[in-house]
């Protein structure tokens, strides 16, 4: 009985950590521009697929990971230069729609380039499950969870302590005032997409051993990651992680104790409920502004 509960919990943590890692990517761009980047799932896919590709041509894992990060950052920057910047005077909603278009394009391009097949990536420390109280958890899940926590701390430090991080937050909050204070808005946008792409790529190759890598893997990951970010309060890195874990664990518990048919529905009901009572998310800052 307890072993069963523990197994559901571990599954929830595994899946939740994945959602959290993807959700983190949404926070940076949102903090910089209030844009919700729906191509974030595709950044994850690109990280995973290019890592798989470089490993398949015989490169050692660390090199493949590094190249995957570089390529994804490059694509993130290209997205800003080619699609977002030309339309920078448009409304936020328009820019969000542009990111949806970009996600479809990236998915299609990946299909043409790498085919439709699915691939796996070797996990960091083996495939043998760790047994705790009769339940099995893969070491990769712990890596994902640990990385998510590390990234949260790094982001916290970046946004709260560094000048450039503060500049990013400032330009999202009041673009005009930020520009008057000498912050280069175009650079901030570029930087935020670059960082998000990097986070996406890292998420991609950490997740790939569990989720496998294929061109459409980003759709559901992006959607659930977005849910995690919204649930935790958009823009709050710690919120994204907790949001991801809540969604993941509630999914696993529903599948385990109620019915797997209602698994996705329950996760979305929780999100609807939270947003109804706390529109800014569980850990979001209320939208009060100083005059």
């Amino acid at each position, binding site marked *: 009985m307890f072993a069963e509960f523990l*197994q559901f919990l571990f599954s929830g943590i595994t899946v939740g950590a994945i959602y959290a890692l993807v959700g983190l990517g949404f926070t940076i761009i949102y903090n910089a521009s209030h844009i919700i980047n729906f191509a974030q799932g595709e950044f994850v896919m690109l990280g995973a697929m290019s890592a798989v590709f470089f490993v398949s041509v015989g490169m050692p894992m660390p090199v493949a990971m590094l190249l995957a990060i570089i390529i994804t950052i490059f694509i993130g920057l290209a997205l800003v230069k080619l699609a977002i910047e030309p339309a920078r005077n448009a409304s936020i909603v328009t820019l969000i729609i542009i990111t949806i278009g970009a996600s479809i394009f990236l998915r299609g391009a990946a299909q043409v380039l790498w085919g439709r097949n*699915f691939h796996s990536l070797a996990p960091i420390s083996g495939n043998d499950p760790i047994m705790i109280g009769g339940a099995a958890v893969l070491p990769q899940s712990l890596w994902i969870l640990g990385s998510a926590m590390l990234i949260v701390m790094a982001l916290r430090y970046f946004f709260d302590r560094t000048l450039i991080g503060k500049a990013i937050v400032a330009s999202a909050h009041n673009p005009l005032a930020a520009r008057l204070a000498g912050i280069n808005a175009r650079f901030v946008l570029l930087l935020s997409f670059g960082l998000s792409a990097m986070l996406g790529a890292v998420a991609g190759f950490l997740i790939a051993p569990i989720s496998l890598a294929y061109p459409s893997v980003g759709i559901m990951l992006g959607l659930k990651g977005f849910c995690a970010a919204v649930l935790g309060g958009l823009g709050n890195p710690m919120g994204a992680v907790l949001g991801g874990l809540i969604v993941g664990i509630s999914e696993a518990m529903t599948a385990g104790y109620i019915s797997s048919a209602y698994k*996705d529905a329950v996760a979305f009901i929780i999100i609807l409920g939270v947003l109804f009572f706390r529109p800014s998310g569980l850990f979001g800052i209320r939208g009060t502004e100083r005059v």
Partner: protein
Amino acid sequence: MKQGFIRHFTTVAAVMALGLGASVSGAKAAETIKIGSFLAVTGGASFLGDPEKKTLEMYVEKINAEGGVLGRKLELIIYDSQGSPKKAVPFAKRLISDDKVDVLLAGSTSGATMAVIPIVEAAGIPYISFGGAGVIVNPVKKWVFKTPHTDTLAVRKIFNDMKKNGLTKVGLLSGSGGFDKSCRKQTLALAGPSGMTMVADETHGKGDTDMTPQITKIKNTPGIQAFMYCGFGAATSIVAKNFKQLGVSVPHYQTHGSASMSFIKNAEGGAEGVRLPAAALIVVDALPDSHPQKKVASAYRDMYTSKSGDSVSTFGGHAYDGLMIVVEAIKRAGSTNKEAVRAEIEKTRNYIGADGIYNMSPKDHLGLDEESFVMVEVRNGTWKMLK
């Protein structure tokens, strides 16, 4: 409203059929034999249409190089329906009334096939579909045939193997895709009549990354003797990995949806011991030389891989079998008279194809039974045929 539409539809089709009849009687002999086709060459179902198109093209070329059929060359007309039933309908009309084809070998998807059946039936033209669904030939339609095996055959094959091993209490897990749902429906429908009891019926979502809660639940179901999974794509490997991670000990069955080397490779050891029904074409190297399909299947695979540079899939095999059945029927009929060709297709007996051994009849326009699947088990990272 709907009835009005159908009536209108039949009138149009009947008028077209009249026009066709008039033109055929005026045609001269020794013309090319026209094979009409619409396939999902591009779009979401291109993984079906693309190998089908390549197969038809390379074998029509081969047959023509060897002198054609009845001394006449084959002429292939292919339109790209993009897998859409809406687009398939005008293409079918154009093939029948403008291109005046002798036979239709078309329809990558069941949707496109079902949409053109009324036109084909009204026009009276032999039609072999590559759509998967059983409903295409069940109930039997006079002019409509198909070559791909159905889910029902795969499920029967799995149940037969379970029974042989004394397993009757089965826990089912299925995904949320079209294939997955259809497979689940067939499994639940066939379980009772086959003497099987489904003790668990769990599902997972599209793009899910971890199925351990469902598998844990199935594992702990009292009395369970076997695990069965209906799914397609990456999820097949994830399920196999999770199954191993949880150390489940009951026999593990998957379907022909998992019959690819990617499944084995990406399950990273989790696929060991998994049993599944596969088309002979996919596991041709695991077949003994005495297997009746070995020669046909390996010849097709070698031709396809060397000419197209892609790896072989069952979908191209459907097109190969369709073309060969039609060619044989035209030879036996000695003409391209539509009724004669149709009757000869229906009389196809013991045709050994890539998909299986076809025995058609007025009651069976598919002609395959569960013997068209080979039961295999994954051993040492490759397929091992089971007796």
